């Protein structure tokens, strides 16, 4: 696990992947209200909704939680960038397009986050858990300010939140974000237990050069000495950020 001094950074700026927030979370449950032991602390309220057009009620468990943002940084400005691009294509200058996009209250404000739970509430090996070896969990050290306890992000619980309804408790370093992205990829998509190997030894050829195909920007293309090539998928990484600007705080809708 990354030491606390290297895990947390100054709490500032726009929302980012890995931010730790204070927010409400909720999920649907079945009639018997089954709740994994680790989530009982998140289930402060048991809500039953009798909808007029539905025979069976909807049941929710909800409560407050410390959560870690799982959506990528890009997601927060996705629709804003699309709207801005469309406005510029319609003929607006950049400043006007930014203003119009800032004023558009229909743009998506939602994102996903996963709650932090106490390691002792999880039925897994505590050593492996806090060493970051258990798929589905990301270990979090206790923050120096005492607001975040030593815990694990339970990535199997994903809640959708609104950007206007959160308070940030802590920001995390790029190294911690990298661990989060790896943990998300391992949980949701990558099933290979090893992603690194000596490629030349495996293919028996020398790598002459590396290129990035324009039509496939996610691939790294390795050109071998026999004229063939191998395409590798790039590892998730921070995108180079363009110029940033500050929009006026939107009124709570």
């Amino acid at each position: 696990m990354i030491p606390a001094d290297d895990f947390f950074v100054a709490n500032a700026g726009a929302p980012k992947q890995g931010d730790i927030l204070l927010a409400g979370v909720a999920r649907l449950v079945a009639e018997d209200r089954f709740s994994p032991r680790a989530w009982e602390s998140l289930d402060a309220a048991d809500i039953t909704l009798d909808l007029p057009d539905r025979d069976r009620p909807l049941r929710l468990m909800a409560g407050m939680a410390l959560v870690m943002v799982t959506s990528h940084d890009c997601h927060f400005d996705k629709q804003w960038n699309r709207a801005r691009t469309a406005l510029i294509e319609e003929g607006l200058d950049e400043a006007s397009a930014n203003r119009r996009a800032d004023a558009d209250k229909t743009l998506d404000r939602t994102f996903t986050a996963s709650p932090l739970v106490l390691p002792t509430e999880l039925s897994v090996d505590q050593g492996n858990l806090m060493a970051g070896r258990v798929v589905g969990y990301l270990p979090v050290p206790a923050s120096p300010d005492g607001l975040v306890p030593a815990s694990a992000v339970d990535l199997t619980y994903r809640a959708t939140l609104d950007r206007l309804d959160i308070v940030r408790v802590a920001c995390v370093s790029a190294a911690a974000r990298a661990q989060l992205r790896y943990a998300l990829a391992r949980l949701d998509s990558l099933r290979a237990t090893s992603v690194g190997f000596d490629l030349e030894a495996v293919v028996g050829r020398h790598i002459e050069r590396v290129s990035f195909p324009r039509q496939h920007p996610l691939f790294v293309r390795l050109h071998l000495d026999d004229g063939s090539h191998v395409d590798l998928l790039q590892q998730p990484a921070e995108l180079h950020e363009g110029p940033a600007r500050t929009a006026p705080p939107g009124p709570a809708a």
Partner: protein
Amino acid sequence: MSTSVADFRPTSSTVLETSRGRAVALQTGLLLAAVFGTNAGVPGVIRWVDDAPLVTTTPVNDRTRAFLSIANEVRELRDEICTYGLTRQEVARAVGVDRRSLSGWVSGEIRPSADRLHVLRLLGRLVADIATERPDHVRDVLLVRRSGTALIDRVVVNGATLLRTWRATARPDATVALRAAPGQFREPIWAPAEAALAEGRLTPPTWERTMRPDTAYEMDVDEAGAFHEPEPHPRRRGYR
């Protein structure tokens, strides 16, 4: 079928009382002359006109009165709709005009088109319909965004249909039963953060936007081959 009042030369008149108590003269003889060149030998003149109520035979001074009557109807409809909590601005929005135009209709300075008047009447019926079932939530039902579009912005295009379908698009009344879930004995891990929030030490993130190229939001699922997982080796059947 219609005819111009300016070309109208009455040869005979029949005075009718309309539903609003206003007398309207149907000067049918000239009408038929205008259409057929003569009214001689054409029987059932009045009945024929009765069957074609769109034919306008109102004299000019009655036209003015009709104009004012429309203004009064618009005022009554607007005021009735506003009693359910909608603003005049929102009434104008629902009808697809600006507030100044709606005021012009009410004052009689502007005559609404038949289409717009029809939409306003539909809005009146829709509002009354919603008020019957959800008397305290008419404005909420009309303004809440479902699938990106509020009901109020669909009246112009789907007004008649909305009279039947608004219930499906409105947020349903839900009965909520709430109780504290069992097992909350320990102080939650978010308690220190909650206390810091109460002391004003925590704030929401800022609203900085980061401009990113379109390519940051594009993908090509044909590239998914890199994520292909080999199928598990099929188990042979029939041999042990």
